[in-house]
């Protein structure tokens, strides 16, 4: 199922890029280039061939793990300083995954904890203030949250650096330090969604007859939530967590730009700007894969936490 989805996505990516306005060859060679040079350059890149054929070649290479060669670094003179798309993407992807994991490690337990505790003390002052705070953070655009954090934690009280430019040589400890502000920004952005879903999924179950039954058999409110409601609420919670984790990988370009963090989002935006088709396609494919894999995991969690599916009659 995931494979089929991925295939369909690859088709969509390819055709979308096909209709992207502009042309790499013209972009590189400039307005002054003659028709002949442009045509020759296009031939060299294989852009003169029909789209169907190019898609076939691309997808055949992709299934073998080869995302192709970047357009940039080439020019009409014949000197080829281009790099493999894989080599371009790999370090960026590592950075993105590092940032995403950092944010996730903080955000997921935090939102579960907040979700469960607000469900437990629902409609209390605590519940209201947590809801209000998280709603506020999600309501502001990411860059605004990012700049506010920079203002307070980098400028006024310089705890963390405002620039998160890391490279392959940056030691691990330093990476944590530099990625702190972007991670914090992302955490603030995604906590609200996950926390509110956790809270809603649990409260939704509190009206069930078995919850009343649990209360009438003397279970304390904490026990009711943790032992009776939560085990039945994992499926919707897992779905929302998967969605947000996917966002951490594919949707963070704005945050990356604000903090000058070399992630995969920036790479893709640059590639789109320069019409570097193989890179754009590679990035898009990785994004799609991230979504599919995370949703698959969420589905699996949904199944293993559902005794009806796990223990058939």
């Amino acid at each position, binding site marked *: 199922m995931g494979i089929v989805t991925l295939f369909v996505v690859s088709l969509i990516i390819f055709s979308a890029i096909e209709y992207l306005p502009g042309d790499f060859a013209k972009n590189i060679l400039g307005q002054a280039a003659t028709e002949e040079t442009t045509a020759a350059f296009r031939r060299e890149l294989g852009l003169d061939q029909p789209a169907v054929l190019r898609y076939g070649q691309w997808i055949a290479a992709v299934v073998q793990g080869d995302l192709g060669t970047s357009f940039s670094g080439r020019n009409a003179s014949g000197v080829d300083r281009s790099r493999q798309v894989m080599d371009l993407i790999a370090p960026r992807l590592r950075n993105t995954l590092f940032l995403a994991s950092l944010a996730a490690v903080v955000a997921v337990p935090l939102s579960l904890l907040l979700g469960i505790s607000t469900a437990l003390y629902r409609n209390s002052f605590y519940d209201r203030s947590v809801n209000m705070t998280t709603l506020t953070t999600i309501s502001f655009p990411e860059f605004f949250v990012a700049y506010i954090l920079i203002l307070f934690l980098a400028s006024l009280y310089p705890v963390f650096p405002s620039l998160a430019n890391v490279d392959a040589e940056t030691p691990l400890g330093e990476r944590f330090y530099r990625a702190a502000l972007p991670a914090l920004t992302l955490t603030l952005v995604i906590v609200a969604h996950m926390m509110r879903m956790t809270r809603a999924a649990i409260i939704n179950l509190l009206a069930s007859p078995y919850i*009343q*039954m649990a209360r*009438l*058999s*003397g279970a304390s409110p904490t026990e009711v939530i943790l032992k009776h409601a939560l085990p039945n609420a994992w499926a919707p919670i897992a779905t929302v967590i998967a969605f947000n984790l996917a966002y951490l990988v594919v949707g963070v370009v704005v945050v990356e730009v604000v903090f000058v963090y070399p992630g995969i989002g920036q790479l893709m935006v640059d590639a789109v700007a320069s019409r570097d088709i193989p890179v754009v396609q590679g990035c898009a494919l990785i994004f799609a894969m991230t979504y599919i894999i995370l949703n698959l995991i969420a589905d699996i969690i949904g199944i293993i936490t559902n*005794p009806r599916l796990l*223990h058939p009659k």
Partner: protein
Amino acid sequence: MSKRTKKGDVLLSIKGLKIQGFSDEKWHNIINGIDLTLHAGEVLGLIGESGAGKSTLGLAAMGYTQPGCRITEGEIIFDGVDLAKLTDGEKRKFWGTRMTYVAQSAAAAFNPARRLIVQTTASTIRAGIKDQSSAYEDAQQLYDVLNLPDPENIGERYPHQVSGGQLQRVMTAMAMSPRPDLLVFDEPTTALDVTTQVEVLASMRSIVEEFNTAAIYITHDLAVVAQMADVIKVLRYGNEVEEAPTRQMLSAPQQEYTKSLWSVRSLEKPQKLVKDSVLSLKGINAGYGAAKVLNNVNIEVPKGSTVAVVGESGSGKSTAARVITGLLPQMSGSVQFNGEGLPPALADRSKDQKRRIQMIYQMADTAMNPRQTVSEIIGRPLEFYLGMRGSKKTQRITDLLEMIELDASFMQRLPGELSGGQKQRICIARALAAEPDFIICDEVTSALDQIVQEGILKLLLRLQEELGLTYLFITHDISTVNAIADQVVVMNQGEVVEQGLKTEVFQPPHPEYTELLLSSVPEMDPDWLTNLIAKRPQ
């Protein structure tokens, strides 16, 4: 015998209890000052229609009020402690240990994610009454006493892996596990088939007797409460109507309301014999995917009469209705209507064929669009089938409302503004609007109180008389069959066991299954269950 109380002592005494519920932005009285006394080892039956406050009172006996309700006055003295004055934390010391609860739908009241034995013993272990191994051992013994199959291992299963009747007994075991002083049964057999109900009732009664536990038994079914209770209290609109020992209450009810409750069961239609069939099912086989539900079903429905299809859940009676309406095309066999074969699939039937067969459902609530007014609901088939518009349509809606004994002021109401009986009447009017010959009534009175049921049944009979309608009446309730049917079809496991005139089917000798079904219908005689258990081979 309980450690804490002796038989005959007052265990629970409720005085002047008033409970309010919050809805429509207002507080309403649910219980208006009720007194109740329960002695140790005694079973009190609470009976009344829905909205009488019987569940609320039963829960209040445990000091529990549902969210959105509050106790405004009165005291609930349990073994010398006023539960009304305690906090939830203090009441939890009683819940699940000294007082336990058996809920209406065991399927919904068990946590789907936890094994049965874990749930059975949770409060016993939490309260430290027994350690885990002895609580498990005791639970297995209780399963055995309650006649559950494979008592050693059934506890390892999850709720969805056992049947409804078994779950209800597991829940009784759960309630018994801590050996409580007080057990509250809240309509524990309402969701069960009659044949299952008998077994569950018998095991509940024997276990309550064995441990001499005091119990409050809430139900709307008089015959059931007659088997279970020592004393019966009748409630209506949150007030007590009367209270008396069971035998006295059954033989000589004092209040008019109680008498009217008793009389509903005596409604009986004189049967008539008609030869011409309007609809006949011939050799129907049908099912869902690979699962075959109907096996060579033949049913004849004579014109202008009522054929009642009786059977337990899973017997295929609703599937037969789905085949007739075309919602589930049969695999083989044919449906003859007015002498012509109906196309199996709904999509292949002509508008006229569709119009002639109409259906009324069990849950009137969900069978109507909550956003449409009564006139839209009834007007739709008028427009669709008969092409009526404007004032002609309005006039027809008014006539139809009159037919179902409602007036034109109902036209602009939404389903949410109607009572249960009124909703079912609107559904009947909607079916009538199409001017059908044949109406399938699928458990149309099951969700209604007995007095409302009687009204609906009388209405259906009158309409049959006036319009010459034919009914296929699906039900599991034998007294409903008595009230409305000319002919009876008994179904079991997708096959027709017996069919014929009501008197023939209800007269012995019966096929084995019909015998089981008929003998399982509770009777008002308080000795009925005792006699039945004595008669049946174990």
